[in-house]
């Protein structure tokens, strides 16, 4: 917002909120300035007129004036601060008219023009960026910008300024979903400051009450929320005689609470009043209008009126699309020109729900279910686009939870249609597609981005710069995770580095259009491709867990089948099986693993000999090989007896992996270094009380002999030479096999702290190879073995899967991985590993490892000392 200049009458009208009169005076002024060739006066008055139009909700004129001001500045040399102000006005007008993308563009331009990034003007830019990023659910980024603005404002203005209150207000809003107490703390601080500056009956106080109401509503403190909304309503009524967006927003809040309390008629009345106000102010197209239709539809759906609800959701969809008109209720829009992607996603999702309700409660028409399925397909397409605007991985992962619901609904409908229509295969494919899309989406797009870089001709110098930035971020993230007390300084540095990386990547996108095109290419998942890639006799079993049901798609060379099983006690069974294996409680193990076998393993065709499991959620922690089909003569019959078993993070990654294994370029890559064997043996230099692993020395020595005898070469690094810096060298890509016999730790709450222990050589290479560092390794190995504890575990992220070391290694280029699901004795591990390599070296040109691991496991099952699954089950193969 611009500060007052000499034109006092216009300014005082503006300050008094008489925007229409103020805008007329400013318009007269800029015309006079233009006549006098007073460029500065012209631009200044133009911008003030634009601000006045924003005040009177005429955003189109405001945006036009801001554009004119920017064009004029381009023609004349203008001060950078004036550019920043013009962009701020432009951003505000776009933001309020619902064009978040345009607002973001303007603010990015404003940021570029900043001369001093610790000035109050910079704080205003950061604050507005925070608002815009919050609007498109880039919460982590938004928080970073608001923190930055708060830091600047506090440093320059002290703790009591109203601009500081603005930052508190915005931070409070962001914290609502994740930390209620923190949110309330910020909002209370804002309220105190606003009251002292503006009094009880002010717009600012009312806005704070609105946010306090939202926070309490989120926490289900309904009475408090109602109280705050009533207070807000009173203030708005005293400030605004007619329609106003703030008034409408409060009505929406009231309607939402009424809906939750089951007072549907009252809720509908409030929502319709809000709709009327919004339409009066914004016209037909605006995210708030879309949101209001969404609420009205929700009320109608709750009232058992799916037809009316469907029409409201369709209106919500089209109110969010700039150049598309509502024609009929079944029409699906083209995903172009949307104002708010998240609201559009919700509207599509709700429309699908309404169609489903219409089908099951009224019509029973198949067309309503197929239309719902199409809505979910469109949701999936939109999710791909939303992922592109989520800049931060944690925000992308958060989107996974929303995506999970969409895919779960899609799978449920597709599964129903598959069993209730004559086109079963088509719907099985649709269900499998949704299952696939629900897995490792973030990892997949990250790998896609890496491939895009390698095909876009980006110079090495730029790639190196990016690599350095990523290393720096990984290091800072690790430091942040390690020492939560030193958040402020580290946080600020991390924020700056992330910003730098983001800016760098955006520049790459602009400079190398091919990179942009490849990076954002729609994933083209091809089942026929998968079927033709699968080795003969292999069945891919892709799972999806939804509440108490588990879906399993079985893909073989020629067929696709879909199974649904009731799995009400799945979590209990999984932990029961894992614990009974780890602590060797045989009766409990047999019981739980037999139950899981029944729930997870469908009847398979006779020629199937290998299973490729694509697990979902906590299923990633189950060693399927140890599932017991039956107990015969006192001996459990394991799945490993029937099939060779391996795992994949997603079917798409399997296709990529299989293709890479046979890609001429990859095949011809220099992997002349053979196997690299790393065994630090002693871990005294690490602070953690890690036992030494003398068996690991024997393990790597024996494997080395095996390789030397069969095919060589074998490079062994023991103790001090098993160092972190060696792993980070470029020659790592020349090894066909990497074998780490060491300790590993997976941090399930902070996956970034998961690590493999090596030897330290410098402060930055401290011997802990963290997950974030693994992402930046250059691996091209056909097999990476982590002969270490629990390296196959991680944090189960909804909609993404297991986030841990295996994910990082897959990203870094490992084609196949052997990791472990729980700590195992040194001797048993050595035995299994040596046997595995013996099996493999009998046919070393064959890069299918599942049979070799199965043979090694069967050897242990048949042995005297290690037949218990505790010894052989934890090591699993990710790959084939």
């Amino acid at each position, binding site marked *: 917002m611009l500060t007052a200049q000499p034109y006092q009458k216009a300014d005082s009208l503006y300050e008094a909120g008489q925007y229409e009169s103020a805008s007329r005076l400013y318009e007269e002024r800029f015309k006079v300035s233009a006549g006098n060739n007073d460029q500065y006066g012209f631009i200044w008055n133009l911008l003030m007129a634009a601000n006045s139009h924003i005040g009177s909700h005429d955003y189109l004129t405001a945006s036009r004036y801001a554009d004119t001001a920017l064009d004029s500045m381009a023609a004349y040399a203008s001060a950078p601060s004036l550019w920043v102000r013009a962009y701020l006005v432009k951003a505000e007008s776009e933001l309020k008219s619902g064009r978040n993308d345009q607002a973001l563009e303007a603010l990015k331009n404003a940021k570029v023009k900043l001369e001093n990034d610790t000035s109050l003007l910079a704080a205003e830019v950061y604050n507005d960026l925070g608002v815009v990023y919050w609007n498109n659910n880039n919460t982590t980024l938004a928080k970073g910008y608001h923190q930055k603005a708060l830091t600047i404002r506090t440093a320059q203005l002290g703790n009591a300024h109203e601009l500081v209150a603005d930052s508190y207000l915005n931070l409070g809003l962001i914290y609502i979903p994740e930390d209620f107490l923190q949110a309330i703390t910020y909002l209370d601080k804002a309220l105190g400051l606003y009251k002292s500056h503006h009094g009880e009956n002010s717009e600012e106080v009312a806005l704070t009450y609105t946010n306090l109401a939202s926070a309490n509503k989120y926490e289900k403190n309904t009475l408090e929320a109602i109280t705050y909304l009533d207070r807000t309503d009173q203030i708005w009524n005293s400030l605004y005689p007619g329609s106003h967006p703030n008034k409408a927003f409060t009505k929406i809040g009231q309607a939402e609470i009424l809906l939750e309390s089951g007072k549907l008629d009252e809720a509908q009345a409030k929502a319709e009043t809000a709709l009327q106000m919004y339409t009066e102010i914004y016209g037909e197209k605006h995210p708030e209008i879309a949101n209001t239709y969404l609420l009205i539809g929700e009320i109608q759906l709750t009232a058992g009126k799916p037809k009316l609800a469907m029409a409201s959701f369709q209106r919500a969809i089209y109110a969010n699309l700039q150049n598309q008109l509502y024609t009929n209720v079944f029409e699906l829009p083209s995903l172009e020109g949307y104002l708010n992607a998240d609201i559009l996603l919700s509207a599509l999702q709700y429309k699908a729900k309404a169609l489903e309700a219409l089908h099951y409660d009224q019509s029973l028409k*198949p067309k309503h*279910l*197929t239309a719902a399925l199409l809505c979910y397909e469109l949701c999936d397409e939109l999710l791909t686009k939303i992922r592109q605007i989520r800049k931060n991985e944690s925000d992308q992962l958060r989107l996974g939870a929303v995506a999970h619901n969409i895919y779960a609904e899609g799978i449920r409908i597709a599964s*129903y249609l598959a*069993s*209730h229509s004559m086109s079963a295969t088509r719907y099985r494919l649709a269900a499998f597609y949704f299952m696939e899309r629900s897995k490792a989406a973030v990892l997949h797009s990250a790998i896609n981005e890496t491939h895009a870089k390698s095909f876009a001709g980006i110079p090495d110098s730029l790639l190196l710069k990016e690599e350095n930035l990523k290393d720096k971020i990984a290091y800072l993230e690790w430091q942040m995770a390690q020492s939560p007390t030193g958040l402020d300084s580290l946080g600020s540095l991390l924020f700056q580095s992330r910003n730098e990386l983001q800016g760098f990547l955006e520049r790459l996108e602009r400079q190398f259009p091919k990179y942009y095109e490849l990076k954002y290419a*729609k994933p083209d998942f091809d089942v*026929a491709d998968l079927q033709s890639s699968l080795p003969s006799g292999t069945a891919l079993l892709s799972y999806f867990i939804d509440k108490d049901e588990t879906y399993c798609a079985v893909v073989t060379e020629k067929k696709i089948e879909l199974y649904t099983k009731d799995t009400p006690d799945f979590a209990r069974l999984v932990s029961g099986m894992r614990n009974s294996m780890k602590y060797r409680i045989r009766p409990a193990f047999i019981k739980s693993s037999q139950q899981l076998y029944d729930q997870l393993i469908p009847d398979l065709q006779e020629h199937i000999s290998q299973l490729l499991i694509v697990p979902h959620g906590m299923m990633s922690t189950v060693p399927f090989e140890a599932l017991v089909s039956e107990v015969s003569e006192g001996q459990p019959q394991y799945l490993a007896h029937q099939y060779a078993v391996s795992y994949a993070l997603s079917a798409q990654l399997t296709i990529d992996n299989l293709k890479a294994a046979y890609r001429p370029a990859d095949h011809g890559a220099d992997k002349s270094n053979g196997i690299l064997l790393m065994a630090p043996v002693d871990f005294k230099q690490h602070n953690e009380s890690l036992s030494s692993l003398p068996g690991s020395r024997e393990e790597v020595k024996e494997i080395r002999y095996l390789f030397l005898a069969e095919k060589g070469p074998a490079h062994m690094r023991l103790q001090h030479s098993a160092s972190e810096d060696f792993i980070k060298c470029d020659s790592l890509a020349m090894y066909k096999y990497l074998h780490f016999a060491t300790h590993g730790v997976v941090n399930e709450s902070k996956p970034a702290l998961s690590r493999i222990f090596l030897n330290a050589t410098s402060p930055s290479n401290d011997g802990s190879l963290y997950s974030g560092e693994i992402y930046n390794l250059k691996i091209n190995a056909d097999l990476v073995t982590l002969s270490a504890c629990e390296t196959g575990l991680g944090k189960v992220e909804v909609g993404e899967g297991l986030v841990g070391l295996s994910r990082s290694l897959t990203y870094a280029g490992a084609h196949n991985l052997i990791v472990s699901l729980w700590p195992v004795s040194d001797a048993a591990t050595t035995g299994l590993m040596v046997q595995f390599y013996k099996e493999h070296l009998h046919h070393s040109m064959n890069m299918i490892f599942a049979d070799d691991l199965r043979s090694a496991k069967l050897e242990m099952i048949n042995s005297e000392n290690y037949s218990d699954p505790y010894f052989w089950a934890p090591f699993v193969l990710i790959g084939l």
Partner: protein
Amino acid sequence: MVFHKPLLISTLKPKGSLAWPMVFMILVIFFMNAPSAQGQGCSDAGFCTMGAMRPDQTYNKEVKFRLRALEVNYYRGESLATPIISAVNADFTFGIGENYAIQAKIPFQWVKGQLGETQGLGDISLSATRSFEKKDYTLGITLGAKVAVGNASKEGSNGDLPMYYQTSLGSYDLVLGGSLINDKWLLATGVQIPIIHRNENDFRWGHWKETEHEEYVFEYNLANQLQRAPDAMLRVERNWRYVNYNFGIGTLAIYRFLKDKRYDFQQDKTIQVAKTSGLSLNLLANAGYQINVRHAIKAVYALKLLAREINPDGLSRHAVLSVSYVYRF
């Protein structure tokens, strides 16, 4: 196959909703015009369409159908001799919660044959059913009764008509049964035990001597003061259920354990009637179309494969077509 938006958009075009009603109508017309089917008909004394034992039962765990239903059913059967039996059944089911239902079935019947025409209210069936809903199947048990509304003594021009022409069987029966239904199969079994006999039929061949019917009147078995023996039934159906239509085939076996009894006016005593016990076997075909959650139409066609030799109760049919309209509310 490449998965992206056009896949479903191009291939999942909703099918015309008129397609299945049309198929249904064609089937109905076909069956209605198929009197030349020369098999033997059904011999159901009422329990085969009662509660858990009825054919073509709805099975859909996703759709919560309304608990009350009125089914109006038109039934047409060709009997052993000339009579064509037509009936309209009003079948009212009243659900009490998810697991209980009571059913009342009130038929109105017309019979037209060479010996004459009769019409009137048929025997009323009342039953209560308890369902046990499981994830993959539903179990149902039924306890019911058939209440006679007459004594089977409707007369023609020459005295009492044979049982084929009677609209009531003249007995009060107890019915017990159960079923197991899943997505593909329906298994139902039950017994119908006559408890009170009020049959006063007095059809005699001699009354039709020297009439135009004299030649074939002997084809109608005597059923004077008939006492039907208990029946047991076993129904097995394989169903194909789709989103809003279904069809299926099945068999219905009805076994009469004992011989029927009748009054022999020549000996002036009640005698057992030879060849009235044994198996009767029917082949069934059914189709249904759910117009929406409230309205549905159904058709069941039954063809007799095996019959008892003597059927004094007049329940033997060549073939039966039953067409129903169901209104749920």
